[in-house]
């Protein structure tokens, strides 16, 4: 049996009649940094909370290091949810003490290392008075104090200013470099993801659209451009658009249509292509 850090097999999660996730299968390689992307409502947060064990899947199974996650936090997993919950009235020092008290395995040393990174966080400040960036740093310190082997981050960047985003990613990358932690990180900010991720997991309407090594995925796709009157006429067209003079398409697979010029897409172009296709499908269904 493959005991990769995180595996999902046919995972579904239904809330009443809404299918937040439906038949999701993927596997994250050890030590990889995976970008989790998709439109709002694609099921990204649901997936992260299932992996963390905050909720139970309706069907299917998620395993972390070979053991099934069933509604309980796996000791090897740390999850930082979107709101970055912390006790606002605690000082940073007290927050770390709380982290130690709430965890069976805890490293004060590791947590303090994270707090000392970059400009450092004042340990006597109340958590509620910190800037968004410093707050994120404290939340990451709590998460990494658990000495996780899998780090799940739900939109850790969304309300940070550019400097704080840069610093947050720096902390996460340092963790990967030092401890080989497997990271799954959801974000809407594709430009930031491009730098730091080596794997991609693209969710849409509760299903996995694309999953794998980013370089391989990009190699597998082409952005093709040609005169408007030409027909694409090939399989694997993800998304296409036409202006008066030009037809542009994102194509999956090796074949380049006749009369078109092909180029390798960048991550942003690839993800946007899939997102556009998803919107077109949804509008067509209405």
């Amino acid at each position: 049996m493959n005991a990769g850090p995180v595996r999902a097999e046919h995972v579904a999660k239904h809330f009443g009649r809404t299918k937040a996730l439906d038949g999701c299968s993927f596997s994250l390689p050890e030590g990889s940094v995976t970008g989790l992307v998709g439109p709002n409502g694609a099921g990204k947060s649901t997936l992260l909370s299932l992996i963390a064990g905050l909720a139970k899947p309706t069907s299917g199974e998620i395993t972390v290091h070979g053991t099934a996650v069933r509604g309980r936090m796996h000791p090897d997993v740390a999850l930082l949810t979107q709101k970055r919950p912390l006790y606002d009235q605690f000082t940073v020092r007290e927050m770390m003490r709380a982290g130690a008290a709430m965890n069976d395995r805890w490293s004060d040393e590791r947590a303090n290392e994270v707090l000392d990174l970059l400009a450092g966080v004042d340990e006597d400040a109340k958590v509620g008075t910190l800037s968004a960036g410093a707050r994120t740093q404290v939340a990451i310190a709590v998460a990494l104090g658990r000495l996780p082997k899998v780090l799940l981050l739900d939109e850790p960047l969304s309300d940070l200013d550019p400097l704080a985003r840069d610093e947050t990613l720096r902390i996460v990358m340092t963790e990967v470099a030092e401890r080989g932690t497997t990271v799954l990180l959801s974000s809407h900010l594709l430009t930031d993801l491009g730098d730091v991720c080596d794997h991609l997991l693209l969710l849409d309407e509760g299903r996995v659209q694309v999953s794998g090594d980013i370089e391989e995925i990009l190699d597998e796709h082409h952005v093709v451009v040609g005169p408007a009157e030409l027909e694409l006429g090939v399989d694997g067209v993800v998304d296409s658009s036409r202006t008066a003079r030009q037809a542009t398409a994102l194509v999956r697979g090796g074949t380049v249509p006749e009369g078109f010029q092909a180029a390798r897409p960048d991550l942003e172009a690839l993800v946007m292509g899939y997102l556009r296709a998803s919107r077109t499908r949804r509008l067509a269904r209405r």
Partner: protein
Amino acid sequence: MSQREQPVLAERLGKKYSRGWALRDCTLEIPAGRIVALVGPNGAGKSTLMGMTTGLLRPTEGRISVFGDAPTGRGMHPAVAFLTQAKPLYPQFTVTETLRYGRNANPGWDQAYAEELVEKARVPFAAKVGTLSGGQRTRVALALALGKRPRLLVLDEPLADLDPLARETVLTTLVRECRAQGITVLLSSHVLAELEDVCDHLVLLAGGRVRLAGDVSDLLRAHADHRTLSGLALAHMRVEVAA
């Protein structure tokens, strides 16, 4: 350019709250018809500057004029529209009712234009605002702001919490409409990369002061070691924060 055509002119503008100066010694000129990126770390004074531009905040010192008038600090200038991150709309109103609200609240309201914008966004008029997706809600808020026929549109982090496609679509609409109508835009965002191809003027604030302001291509020429707007802005922010 006469004063009446100058969207924003600030002279030694400052605003002090009980906890200290949020903005100080801000001298600034925003030319008409530009799309201006307002960037800076959190707490740099961006929202304060926007508040004084829209007339919702009163300056502590210095002067600001918007199309030649001094904002009173009590209400919006009729030629200014303001869209904040929170996009305050009534969730129980339908889109049609939201536009009617706009018509009643604004003397220069252009109903046809607002409706056209909603149609382009493919948002159903009968839908309740509360049921719309984030992207759709932003498009309605934008229609409400533009239906007022402003000459200056001030946007405070309008794209936060939208997904990448919605970000792109909203931004494209915004730029297209504002260019077509000749509206001056003051746009704040934390995502420098997406301002890259959109903004032609930059105002960088840090620590309550203007650190960099001017035409983007001029600035890039003057700082030859940076090839992009985001690289230039990020480097300046880092220096200011370190100092």
